[in-house]
């Protein structure tokens, strides 16, 4: 008789405290281990058939002495072309079949040291070069020169 009574009773307490505690720990681990995708952005300007106007280089003073163009070529070669007061061209060959972006940054640093008034450089690439490679070069150049113009290969 007593046994029957206990079976039918719906008067119970559900103790879920322990399971919730476990969930809290699991969520903490999940949040710590999860890798959230973060987006960033790279600012560029584009010129069409006309080089960047001198006003974008240095608005208060005269145009810079030289213009610098980085050209991405096939075979992962990089050309740095300086025009203006001096005319010079550097070629940076591929390193281990990859773009030698460290050397690019080093060369641009040397140019920046020599010509302090340059604020903007131009990057061009051959049509077959992939976008990610262009972005890589833009980011390497942007460490030294904040203003980047993309353009057409001449």
């Amino acid at each position, binding site marked *: 008789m007593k046994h029957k009574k206990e079976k039918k009773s719906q008067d119970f307490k559900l103790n879920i405290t322990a399971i919730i505690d476990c969930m*809290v720990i699991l969520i903490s681990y999940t949040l710590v281990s999860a890798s959230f995708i973060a987006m960033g952005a790279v600012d560029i300007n*584009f010129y069409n058939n006309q080089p960047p106007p001198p006003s974008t280089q240095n608005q208060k003073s005269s145009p810079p002495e030289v213009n610098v163009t980085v050209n991405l070529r096939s075979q992962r070669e990089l050309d740095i072309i300086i025009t203006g007061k001096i005319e010079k061209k550097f070629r940076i060959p591929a390193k281990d079949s990859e773009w030698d972006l460290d050397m690019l940054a080093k060369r641009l640093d040397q140019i920046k040291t020599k010509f302090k008034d340059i604020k903007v450089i131009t990057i061009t690439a051959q049509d077959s070069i992939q976008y990610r490679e262009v972005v890589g070069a833009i980011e390497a150049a942007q460490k030294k020169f904040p203003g980047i113009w993309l353009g057409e290969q001449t």
Partner: protein
Amino acid sequence: MAKRIRRSKTSGDVILNITALADTMVVLLVFLLKSSASGALDITPSAGLTLPEGTGPRELEESLKIEISQRSIKFEDKDIMPLINFRMRPTEFRPDGASSSLVAFFSRNRAKIMNQDRKLADDASQSKNRQKRILVLADSRTPYGTIRRVFASAANEGLGKFKLVVVRKE
């Protein structure tokens, strides 16, 4: 005895201890609030589109959007040009480096685009150094030739400033 059984049968007094659950929710809420405050913009590229990796700063604001994927170019989530394996048809090429269909599109919609851009600029007026830059979500495998033609077409109509969206390398 029979009376007692009946009472317990109809009783619906179930006490749920939700204290721990509430604690968890508070923690989650803090995380959600933090992420919504720091992430100014939710960008969702189309399926199959792989953005390039980069280290660019997280300076993304609501702006007009161009998406370049393997099969199409989209402007504000609307297809504006089909692509064949990331490439335009040769009939599209113009001597000035732009694409004839895209130039026509930007020319036709210039007023509308400028209005949209102005509205977005007004909405974001609280943010400093607001620049009208078009967000570019392009697949990392896209050849520069296609990118260049898209940019040249937009630049033809005075839209020459862009923000290249990258996935940040942490």
